């Protein structure tokens, strides 16, 4: 194990576990400034986590082990995904491999755990959010797999460190297939992080919410795990976006040094999008993401024609 891979592994794990709430905080702060508010500062998510950690939980009457395990399983799946997604083209083996398509499975596991807990509480708001989330996920998963497939075809492997290395340099600028995949992946980022125009992270109204619904019944440390998992989801998709679909250098040290810059830029982009775009009608969202999947498909065709 070289010093490179140790550093890269440390960046990946520490960043994913400890710095991911900062991404949420930065986005919220940037959004507040863009909207003419002062904002609570980028550290607000940490304060929220501390507050939730000190509170007692709630056991809903008549629930089973499914409800009690769900927040843990969600956080554990995100933890495994943090080990899976590398922060650069070097990554030590952390026991879960580094496969791009396996990531889709972990995201699905987290989604299923939350939605099963929604059924366990039989809360109408929770089930409304769950059914919407799972309906969207049909299109999100297709777009996710197809956009990662483009990157995998360009790089010749689905091994994520290999994909990061294979798309390094001028690739995202010069390969049209990757550009199309980047468009699709941008939609995946918005959907997976639950941001406008797909979902509104600031609202708790049942008419508008998707991701907030199923976690309504959790409190205390359970809620803290779920909030952290949402932040970890930001880390995962933004790191993938930065290190595959944005231009990134070849050397590992350069990659690690530039990653924070790319992440901050992406958070700003999310904040700008949230400020400019209103939330869409819920039934139109699948169309939008479906178009994203079609664009990624077009990316594969472009690559095929290019290669032929």
């Amino acid at each position, binding site marked *: 194990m070289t010093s490179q891979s140790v550093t890269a592994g440390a960046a990946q794990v520490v960043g994913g576990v400890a710095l991911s709430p900062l991404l949420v905080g930065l986005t919220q702060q940037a959004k507040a400034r863009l909207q003419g508010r002062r904002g609570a500062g980028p550290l607000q998510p940490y304060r929220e986590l501390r507050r939730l950690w000190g509170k*007692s939980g709630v056991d*809903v009457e008549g629930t*089973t082990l*499914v409800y009690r395990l769900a927040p843990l*399983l969600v956080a554990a799946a995100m933890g495994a995904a943090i080990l899976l997604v590398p922060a650069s083209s070097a990554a030590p083996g952390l026991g879960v*491999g580094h496969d791009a398509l*396996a990531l889709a499975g972990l995201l*699905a596991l987290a989604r299923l755990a939350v939605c099963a807990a929604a*059924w366990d509480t*039989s809360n109408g708001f929770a089930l409304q959010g769950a059914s919407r989330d799972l309906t969207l996920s049909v299109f999100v998963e297709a777009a996710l797999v197809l956009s990662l497939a483009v990157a995998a075809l360009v790089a010749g492997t689905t091994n994520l460190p290999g994909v990061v290395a294979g798309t390094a340099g001028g690739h995202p600028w010069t390969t049209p297939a990757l550009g199309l995949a980047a468009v699709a992946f941008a939609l995946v980022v918005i959907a997976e992080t639950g941001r406008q125009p797909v979902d509104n992270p600031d609202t708790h109204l049942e008419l508008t919410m998707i991701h907030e619904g199923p976690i309504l019944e959790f409190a205390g440390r359970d809620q803290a795990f779920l909030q952290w998992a949402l932040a970890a989801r930001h880390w995962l998709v933004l790191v993938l976006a930065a290190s595959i679909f944005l231009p990134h250098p070849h050397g590992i040290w350069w990659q690690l040094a530039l990653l924070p810059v790319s992440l901050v830029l992406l958070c700003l982009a999310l904040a700008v999008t949230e400020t400019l775009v209103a939330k869409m009608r819920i039934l139109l969202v699948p169309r939008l993401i479906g178009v994203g999947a079609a664009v990624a498909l077009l990316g594969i065709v472009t690559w095929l024609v290019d290669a032929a």
Partner: protein
Amino acid sequence: MTALIVAGLAGIVLGGVLSSLPDRIAAGLWLQAAGALALGLAGARVLYGGDDWGAPFTSELTPQAGIDGMTGFFLAMLALVACPALVFASAYLPRTRAGRITAALGAAFLLALIGVLCARDALSFLFFWELMTLVPAAIILTGTSTEAARHTVFTYVAITHLGGAGTWIALLLLAHEGAIGDATALSEGSGVQAVIAVAAIIGFGTKAGLMPMHVWLPRAHPIAPASISALMSGVMVAVAAYGLIRVLVDWLGPPPSWVGAVMLVLGGLSALGGITYALFQRDLKRLLAYSTVEHLGVVALALGACLLLRRHGADEWASFALGAALLHTLNHATFKALLFLGAGTFERATGALELDRLGGLLRRMPWSGGAFLVGALAIAGMPLLNGFASEWLTLQALLRVPAYAGVWDGTLGALALAALAGTMALAVLCFVKVIGLVLLGPPRRSACAEAVEPPAPMRWALVALAGACVVLGAVPGLLLPRLTGLAPWADPGEPPVRPGLDLPGTGNLPTLGFLVVVCGLTGLLWLARGSRRAAVSPTWASGQLVEPQLLWTSAGFSKPLRLVLEAVLRPQREIETTTSGGVVQEVSYAGRVPHLIDDRLYRPVTSGALLAASWARRLQSGRLGTYVLYLIGLVVALLLAVRIGAIG
């Protein structure tokens, strides 16, 4: 080896006879299970030992039997499903005459399945194939003889026989060309090769339930007794996949690329269509039957990828794709059998399987409910369990189609990849709904609130199958090299032994690592959460009490999807409002998602056929004079034809 096989067959035959005697039904079923186990062990020994038993394949029409690696794998799969199913049946089947006949016919069904797998010539293959179709029909009619059941059995027998003609044509043509067991006999791109491929896809595809030949499957599988449903949905469709693999991969030689493309199209259609229609079913067993269509679609996708990759020279990935198809067939057999047996348990405990009228069974039946939960998670493709391993492998194989197969086939491969990704997400939606409506929440009927665990053998069977789902999910790598080695083009050699799936050009799927990391983290977080000072509270419903009328239904949970897919699914809804004196008295609502392939494809064909039959019937008046007139007319027409020189 021979002794093991003879003992196995004897066990099944004697068990069948014994279970037909009064008061010996349980002993007979246990004996059948022991026989199936012996045959499964023999199969596993051939798969892992590598030495074939019995005769090789022959194009002669003399009956021959033998076991090679592929047959061994399917025999082991049969045992893995049949042993729990038979043990389950020993407590499940009623001690009546109908129960005894079902048990005895079950043995005949097993023998027919084994016969198809072990047949080494066309004649005995077709004999057992027909038997395998007819015995379940007899079993269904033994259990129920209502008008609806008879109609279902008629549909089943009619469609599988119409489609089954394809199997006959394919097998007999292969025997005629001397191609059974000899991949070099057919010349590449020849007409006869094309005819055999089409006939095999229709014949075996009908039996496997590939769309659009699937219409019999969701009707016939649910009405059989649970243990037979498990064998039908777990093993019988797998035997159809076995037939497809034998013909398309082993005997056809390298087929033209359109064969692989057709498999991708049929597979994508079946996967997406199967799971979509499963979502809108109201009955649990019918939902499971539609999900069988989905999973055979996934197998067809893997098989299509295998054929295309082989065609384009990517032999290593072609054998991985074949391994994916075989592994998914096995995984599907385990969790589908588990879910069908679980459905039978719930039906026994609560009296009905309407999805909206179950609920809360996990608390009432922790063992069988817990096993059912494992099966539902596995079928939804959750990492850590077996469904995900083979679906991941299939995704990887489909991704290699664009990488190797050129623009047109590559685009099709990319579409198939998107279809499979969508299918996996739809499966999560579908089975979250099943878990929620069946196992969680409050009981929705008094029978559910009073449900109790079934007798021990039924419980053991469910738990054993759940264990198989966990083990196959943890160490698929111990099996996969054996399965990829079954490809006729694979190099013989000792494969490396690893628990996970390590494939070149991927980031690997260390299944054991996933299990350890996810379970370990969950445990750590459980400790971190500490002893809970949790307040108990009712569910929040804006300050109301959660009453039964407020509970979510199956239709409600799938409504967003129904609205999104409205243009494709064409759902029907009717709202009737009864008013009297300007006051609304009653509002009634009926909605359904029609099965478009039934309505748009089969209904016109059957009504056309009936119309033609009624025309033809007018010719048959039954009066002698009319027939004499027909004869005279024919003779005159022939004479005229000779006169004008058309014939003679």
